[in-house]
């Protein structure tokens, strides 16, 4: 007789237990949560203070020095855009693939996407120096009626990032509506009033589900190419130039894989402590971490290949500027940055071949910290090392980050962490309705549908 093997991804709780456990996460905050939030707000205030100093004294405080005018701020911009990509991959692409393990983690990763892109969006504004003219980034004609240059990758970027932020926010909010309605029906008092507003009159009628489920599918279908395009466009900010080390056709897939890799790393960093603080360990289990780790291993291996190819093509091109750039990345003044990125990204990710590591949360958390550091350094090395030594050796100079760079970087982590933590206590961080979709309703008669 054939044995039906239960999919390990199928939740073990009943419908009622899912609602109860997720809505319980919205209750009064505990000590651990408040400590994390206080830390995030503290870092954010460091960033605010640094930004005020930058407004007052200018970008000179931030180590901007010829020939390096793109440094920590642009590095951090690319880092945060990349973080967002794992969220959309898990919520949209894996939704289209009907991957069962995404349901428990996708809401948290989707929120991570929105807040990461929101954080990234601040950096072009901080970077431009005269921040009060930030609206010049928008495509409208200047006083001579000259329109923006649509052939510039920087204008592509403005469109790509703003579209990405809008679409991911829409996707997150649409997904939240039925869950907020479930919370509304359990809560009482002022909380119920607030959730009633956010639930937009949702009652889960057949008519609402009919339109909603289709719309969600189309949103996922639209978000899928968007996520692949956004980091490709970010990579073209560099690849469309002729700077050695930037002008590579591999950049788009290399950046997309790196973005997903860094994003999944951040998912580990956020979810491992969060599931403990919110007491949802039984909902996000080893099974989910194992699958997330496999995704990390896959993208980390693509990254490993891309690093090898970068160095190989640098040598094989016969172009002395390319060769020098890559030689200096490994053995020049920035060797420490170059090796940090290779060790943290290419080598550390290979540890995930072992199942014991993939299902050990302490190991995964440590690896995720390596990934975060490695991916920030990857962008830092690509950006500053290429600008430090371009075609004119007499102009070569190293970039040295200052306290202002570190202050803004710390502030960005605080800003991101603050929004993520506030979200996690205010809205269901696990998708109630999608988990329920996986749990079969009880039947009067035996046999399945």
């Amino acid at each position, binding site marked *: 007789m054939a044995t039906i093997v239960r999919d390990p991804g199928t939740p073990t709780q009943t419908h009622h237990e899912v609602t109860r456990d997720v809505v319980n996460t919205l209750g009064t905050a505990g000590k651990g949560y408040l400590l994390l939030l206080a830390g995030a707000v503290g870092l954010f205030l460091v960033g605010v203070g640094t930004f005020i100093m930058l407004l007052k004294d200018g970008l000179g405080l931030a180590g901007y020095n010829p020939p390096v005018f793109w440094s920590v701020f642009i590095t951090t911009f690319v880092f945060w855009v990349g973080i967002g990509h794992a969220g959309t991959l898990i919520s949209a692409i894996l939704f289209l693939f009907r991957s069962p393990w995404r349901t428990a983690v996708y809401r948290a990763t989707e929120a991570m996407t929105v807040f990461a892109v929101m954080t990234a969006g601040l950096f072009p504004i901080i970077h431009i120096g005269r921040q009060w003219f930030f609206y010049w980034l928008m495509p409208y004609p200047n006083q001579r009626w000259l329109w*923006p240059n649509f052939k510039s990758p920087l204008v592509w970027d403005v469109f790509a990032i703003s579209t990405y932020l809008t679409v991911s926010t829409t996707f997150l909010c649409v997904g939240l509506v039925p869950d907020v309605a479930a919370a509304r029906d359990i809560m009482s008092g002022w909380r119920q009033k607030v959730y009633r507003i956010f639930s937009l009159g949702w009652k889960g009628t057949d008519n609402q589900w009919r339109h909603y489920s289709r719309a969600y599918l*189309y949103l996922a279908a639209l978000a899928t190419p968007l996520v692949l395009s956004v980091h490709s466009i970010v990579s073209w900010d560099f690849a469309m130039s002729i700077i050695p080390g930037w002008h590579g056709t591999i950049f788009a897939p290399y950046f997309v894989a790196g973005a997903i890799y860094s994003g999944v790393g951040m998912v580990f960093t956020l979810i491992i402590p969060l599931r403990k603080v919110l007491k949802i360990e039984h909902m996000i289990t080893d099974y989910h971490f194992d699958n997330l780790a496999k995704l990390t291993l896959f993208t980390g291996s693509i990254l490993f290949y891309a690093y090898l190819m970068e160095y190989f093509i640098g040598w094989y091109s016969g172009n002395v500027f390319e060769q020098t750039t890559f030689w200096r990345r490994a053995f020049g003044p920035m060797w420490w940055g170059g090796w940090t990125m290779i060790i943290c990204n290419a080598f550390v990710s290979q540890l995930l071949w072992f199942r014991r590591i993939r299902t050990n949360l302490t190991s995964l958390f440590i690896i995720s910290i390596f990934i975060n550091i490695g991916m920030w350094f990857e962008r830092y090395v690509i950006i500053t090392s290429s600008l430090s030594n371009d075609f004119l050796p007499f102009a070569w100079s190293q970039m040295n980050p200052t306290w202002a760079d570190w202050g803004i970087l710390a502030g960005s982590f605080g800003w991101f962490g603050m929004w993520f933590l506030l979200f996690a206590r205010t809205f269901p961080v696990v998708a109630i309705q999608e988990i329920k979709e996986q749990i079969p309703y009880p039947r009067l008669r035996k046999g399945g549908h």
Partner: protein
Amino acid sequence: MARTVPGVLAAFQHIDAACDAIQALRAQGRKDFTVYAAAHNHELEEAVGKPVSPVRLFTLFGGLTGACAGLGMTYWMSLDWPLLVGGKPIASVPPYVVFIFELMVLLGSLSTVAGVVLLSLAKPTTGLAYDPRFSDDQIGIFVPCTGADAAAVERMFTDAGSVGVRHAA
């Protein structure tokens, strides 16, 4: 306050019982019933038997509008102030594909959401009897009816295996 629609509201614990009740309602020629569920369920969708949502038309219209807007905007703005740089074409499609694509996705997504809102508003739920358990673990069916008709519907729900039936005044 919205007027309550008179009718019968039944709660079901079992999916097959709810589907039986829906099919019985359809067999009686009823189309005005409302089914509540906490999650999207294909079995219920099949039992209700409504056609595929037309929300896809909103997505298509929004996407096409966005693509045309992206192409039109970049072409028109380039030709509005023709600036010849490096002998390159003033208006060039390959770089403009980025704007065409981004605006297609942007307007396609926003119009999809607008479609859900408009289509849901076309069949308002105001005044229909509802129970908070329907967003938790039970399936609900509401049938607007009065008098003898309501008694027959109540009987049918009880026979199908409903775990609770009540009348909405």
